[in-house]
């Protein structure tokens, strides 16, 4: 075990996956990842082609071209960079190319802000990328290796985005156990697609399709997404068998068994919530608060979530994003997942935007609001902003 910055732990995981081509453009707070990988390539530690591109649009385009030739590819971005990638993200998914990208989650302008929330990746929700969110640096590192295994599976063939909260995870120094190269080689065989671009057997990828078949192609991507649910669970188990670490499959739970109130969230806030829950349960008032960690956001694990919350009385969904004019994206999806069930009350909270800290007290206040809703039997406010102190 070593103490290292989150970005470096991810860079080490990328290196262990032996990508053939890396194309990236630096942007805070993703920079340390691609800077470190560039150093590895320059110093001869990693035998990859490192393409220095002029924009994120180009970074993803290079990954698409390289991936189509059968290369294993990697990139990382965040915020405005991801927004600039927008149209090419859809191409990567539609072409069914197993590109892996780290999303160092950050807010979107304006106003300009370089700090953490998850608006960037959530805004690319419908692009056809599998979206995973890491709780800590160890998981972000391990998830990168898992991501290739999921993406490159012949039944899946979809790009995977590994979300890690900007600064909170990318820049924090934590103890990390790196995966030994020979074990990663064993876990992750080289990418060997059935079809790839080669002059010996010319092919076109992503040809025009007419109204008569476009729907079917979209359906095929959707079906691959649905199959990925099982694959993500299996890969997490395989990873545990090989490396001894497990973070849940699509979701994970904490103190959820007897919980009346369940906090639900994605990313690094899970750690804070676990601490808050420990304190709430230890203070002797008998508060039954637990947690559902949403590890996989797309495909959306609707069934797993419905099952996990079925004996709770209220859920409080934390969103580090907002669909302006409605509510947090996770909140909407969770409520939709519970529509068929006679599910618990669902409260939504918008918080942690643009790097504002989410403290244990914030979580405790939210749990208290959920308990009040249980007592009164109704949700007073469907969705609310937390800590609007500056207004």
């Amino acid at each position, binding site marked *: 075990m070593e103490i290292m910055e989150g970005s470096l732990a991810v860079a080490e995981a990328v290196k262990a996956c032996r990508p053939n081509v890396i194309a990236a453009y630096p942007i805070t707070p993703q920079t340390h990842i691609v800077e470190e990988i560039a150093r590895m390539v320059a110093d001869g530690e990693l035998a990859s082609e490192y393409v220095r591109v002029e924009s994120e649009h180009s970074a993803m385009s290079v990954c698409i071209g390289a991936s189509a030739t059968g290369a294993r590819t990697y990139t990382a971005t965040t915020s405005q960079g991801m927004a600039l990638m927008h149209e090419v993200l859809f191409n990567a998914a*539609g*072409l*069914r*190319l197993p590109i892996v990208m780290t999303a160092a989650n950050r807010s979107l302008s304006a106003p300009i802000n370089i700090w953490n929330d998850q608006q960037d990746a959530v805004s690319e929700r419908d692009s056809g990328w599998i979206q995973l969110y890491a709780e800590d640096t160890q998981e972000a590192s391990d998830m990168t290796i898992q991501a290739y295994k999921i993406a490159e599976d012949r039944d899946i*063939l979809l790009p995977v985005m590994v979300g890690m909260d900007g600064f909170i995870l990318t820049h924090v120094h934590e103890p990390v156990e790196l995966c030994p190269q020979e074990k990663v080689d064993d876990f992750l065989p080289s990418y060997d697609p059935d*079809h790839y671009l080669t002059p010996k057997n*010319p*092919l*076109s*990828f*992503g*040809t*025009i*399709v007419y109204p008569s*078949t476009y729907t*079917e*192609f979209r359906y*095929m991507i959707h079906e691959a997404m649905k199959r990925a649910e099982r694959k993500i669970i299996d890969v997490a188990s395989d990873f545990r068998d090989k490396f001894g670490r497990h973070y849940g499959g699509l979701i994970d739970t904490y103190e959820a068994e007897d919980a009346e109130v369940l906090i639900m969230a994605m990313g690094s806030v899970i750690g804070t919530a676990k601490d808050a829950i420990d304190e709430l349960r230890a203070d002797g008032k008998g508060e039954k608060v637990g947690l559902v960690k949403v590890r996989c956001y797309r495909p959306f694990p609707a069934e797993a979530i419905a099952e996990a919350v079925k004996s709770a009385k209220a859920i409080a969904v934390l969103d580090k994003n907002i669909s302006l004019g409605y509510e947090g994206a996770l909140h909407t999806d969770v409520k939709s997942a519970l529509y068929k069930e006679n599910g618990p009350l669902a409260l939504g909270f918008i918080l942690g935007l643009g790097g504002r800290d989410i403290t244990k007290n914030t979580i405790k206040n939210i749990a208290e609001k959920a308990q009040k809703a249980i007592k009164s039997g109704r949700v007073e406010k469907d969705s609310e902003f937390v800590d609007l102190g500056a207004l």
Partner: protein
Amino acid sequence: MKLSIGAMAEPGSTRTNKTGSWRTFKPIINVEACIGCGTCSMFCPEGTICKVADKYAIDYDYCKGCGICAHECPVKAIEMVLEGE
């Protein structure tokens, strides 16, 4: 019909994808009036007009009916006719 992953196709797909079906108006060359100057062929953005003997003919499998040929013809020998008429 088998759909390939990622809408992949082998070379020569334009041989099977006949874009002439997109056409609303069909250019008809009046061979009597045609002076064989080749202006239509040079302006056709799809390269569907070829010289046949001294005159010109249109490949309707790929002509999309844009009407540029009719517009450019110096002797107005090309008429655009609504498909199906």
